[in-house]
């Protein structure tokens, strides 16, 4: 099984260790991982600002860069949501676009839905606070959100629960937004920071030692506040936790065996 790594632009520049952890994790699962060198940015900042004309060439580049691969995987729910839910307006009807949409996955989704990972041997003896990033939660439905009536689930948590000795924080608000919101973080700075401070206060009262999420952008904002205010919380992307906890070659599932064969 061949996977193309889609690394969000700001992760490439500011959090290379998150992309490295994703790469290591996927390689340990026996996958052939490539990093297409032509990728830059998916165009989400432009489209979220209303500048669809500026997003178009980037979406076009994305399609050209990734169309040839079997799977495209990114350690970001938000950027994958851009491809899956918002590219229609830019690329709808273009050859290869529907296929691209259907084979682009956020990392946790890919592990749970495609690889069907149900066993991980690794230990992470810390209390983890899981921040449910909004685009992953409500655009990709990586978990159940508190507004919708129905069965409760969370793909990121499902993966973390496979690790030994891990503990989870009980939050007062399970899925309130952190306040990052892309350019919102700057244009509505006051509200954005208050939202972030409130999330952190919730994690502090719950005893979070490691704050994690499937989106580094939320964590960048929260980490910025944590560092400014000197709170005793460490921030790690979920890929970093999984990669650190898991020993090489220890992940077993049907899909992995198949992937190993191919």
């Amino acid at each position, binding site marked *: 099984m061949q996977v193309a790594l889609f690394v969000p*632009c700001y*992760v*490439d*520049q500011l*959090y*290379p260790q998150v992309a*490295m952890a994703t790469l290591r994790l996927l390689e340990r699962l026996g996958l052939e991982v490539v*990093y297409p*060198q*032509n990728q*830059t*940015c998916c*165009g989400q*900042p*432009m489209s*979220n*600002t*209303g*500048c*669809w004309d*500026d*997003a178009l*060439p980037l979406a076009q*580049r994305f399609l050209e860069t990734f169309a040839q691969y079997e799977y495209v995987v990114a350690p970001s729910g938000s950027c994958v949501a851009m491809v899956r839910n918002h590219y229609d307006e830019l690329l709808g009807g273009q050859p290869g676009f529907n296929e691209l949409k259907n084979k682009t996955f956020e990392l946790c989704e890919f592990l749970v839905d495609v690889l069907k990972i149900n066993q991980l041997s690794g230990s992470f003896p810390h209390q983890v606070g899981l921040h449910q990033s*909004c*685009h992953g*939660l*409500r*655009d990709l439905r990586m978990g159940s959100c*508190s*507004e919708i*009536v*129905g069965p409760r689930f969370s793909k990121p948590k499902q993966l973390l629960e496979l690790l030994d000795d891990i503990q989870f924080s009980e939050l007062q*608000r399970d*899925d*309130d*937004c952190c*306040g990052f*919101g*892309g*350019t*919102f973080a*700057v*244009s*509505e*700075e*006051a*509200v954005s*920071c*208050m*939202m*972030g401070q*409130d999330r952190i206060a919730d994690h502090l009262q719950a005893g979070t030692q490691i704050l994690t999420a499937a989106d580094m952008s939320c964590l*960048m*904002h929260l*980490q*910025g*506040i944590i*560092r*400014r205010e000197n709170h005793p919380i460490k921030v790690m992307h979920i890929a970093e936790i999984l990669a650190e906890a898991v020993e090489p070659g220890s992940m077993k599932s049907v899909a992995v065996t198949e992937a190993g064969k191919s």
Partner: protein
Amino acid sequence: MSSTQDHPAKAKAFVANNERAHWHDKALWFVREKRDRMANSLPEWETLREVASEIKSHTIGKLADYLEQFEENATKLGVHVHWAKDDKEHNRIVLEILQSHDVKRVVKSKSMLTEECHLNPFLEKHDIEVIDTDLGERIVQLRDESPSHIVLPAIHIRKEEVSETFEEHLGTEHGNSDPKYLTEAARGHLREKFLGADAGITGVNFAIAETGGIVVCTNEGNADLGVSLPKLHIACMGIEKIIPRLNDLSVFLRLLARSATGQPITTYSSHFHGPLTGGEMHIVLLDNGRSDLMGSNEFRNSLKCIRCGACMNTCPVYRRSGGHSYSTTVPGPIGSILAPAMDSKANKSLPFACSLCGSCTDVCPVKIDLHHQLLTWRGELRKRGQLPIDKWLPMKVGSWVMRSPSLFAMVGSIGRFFLRNMPRWMIYHGLNSWGKQRELPEAPKKSFRQLYNEQQKNKPQAGDKNNE
């Protein structure tokens, strides 16, 4: 309405009183949690939302037909039906009805539509006293403010402040802010107003095409009292309030109060089918931009709104910035869609008063794709040339840089170099909004691209891979 201040500035002022902003956030979150408990008590909740959304889609698609049917049936019940193109015509119609009956004092139950038309100041200018009889609305009226929420108009006011207002206007005891005491005082005060009124004005929650009847939902019974004592009843409604059949009402009544306040149903769901004996009943149907929305593929869904306010209660921005920060009659997510439809230039900051978290879309009982519409508005503002340069220019430059992987890598490495090596005062200054309350990320020496390519170079040859 004329001079609209930007949302970020007003929000900043609200947040500056941190203790109060947290109190506001908690008060609304409490309502949101009540709503969650109520929604979860109905296993069929998501089906109800779907059905409600479909009924509304159907109705909007055939609105002209249903409006005609409603007018015909209401007329048969003895109701005078009026059509108003805009707020001015609406106010003129209401004034003419009142003047023809020589009305001097009006009691009015909660109606966001009359707020939208600024009916109160208009009637007062013509020497007609208008008393809002909903407790929350009466509080904001006495304070000469506007509602900050469509269901909880005085949610931004604390009981101690209500006590001060009532002491000044109703002569209540100094310092007594017991809610029960204050409510009793308001009740006594309003009772006199009800008894002295010449006419009652109400809003409309639902108008049923099949029967010609209207339904008004209140928790205080003030709509009933306001139109039972005076002989003249004027009901003001937007044309989107129509539902086809009486049977459809059951779907909406189950959703409305649960979504709005977390109650199974409003205390009073009052049905009106014509005037009192010897009285008169008028219904004013207002367009005011609604038919324009009906013709818009992007924003038509916003007409499904049943004004429950759930999107406000859940919105993390609304909860922390307060309703007045939107400078509109209807604040919050739905208001940020409706207001630009009326005047996109004046309200251009509202579609950006949103982190695109999507909670509003999932809480909405009629499944309006609220956060998608807000995103669509941003694109529409760009098309109309109404985005400020500080929003579009960085995107243009960013797009240009990102069209070339090598240029992106170069700009990135220069940026990281400066971030690592510049003295703190050159990074954290007044122009750096990010850095006011947050640290910037620690810039690594190498990007992922660099690390990956180095790793690839040092990797054993492909042929060796199987032996690893």
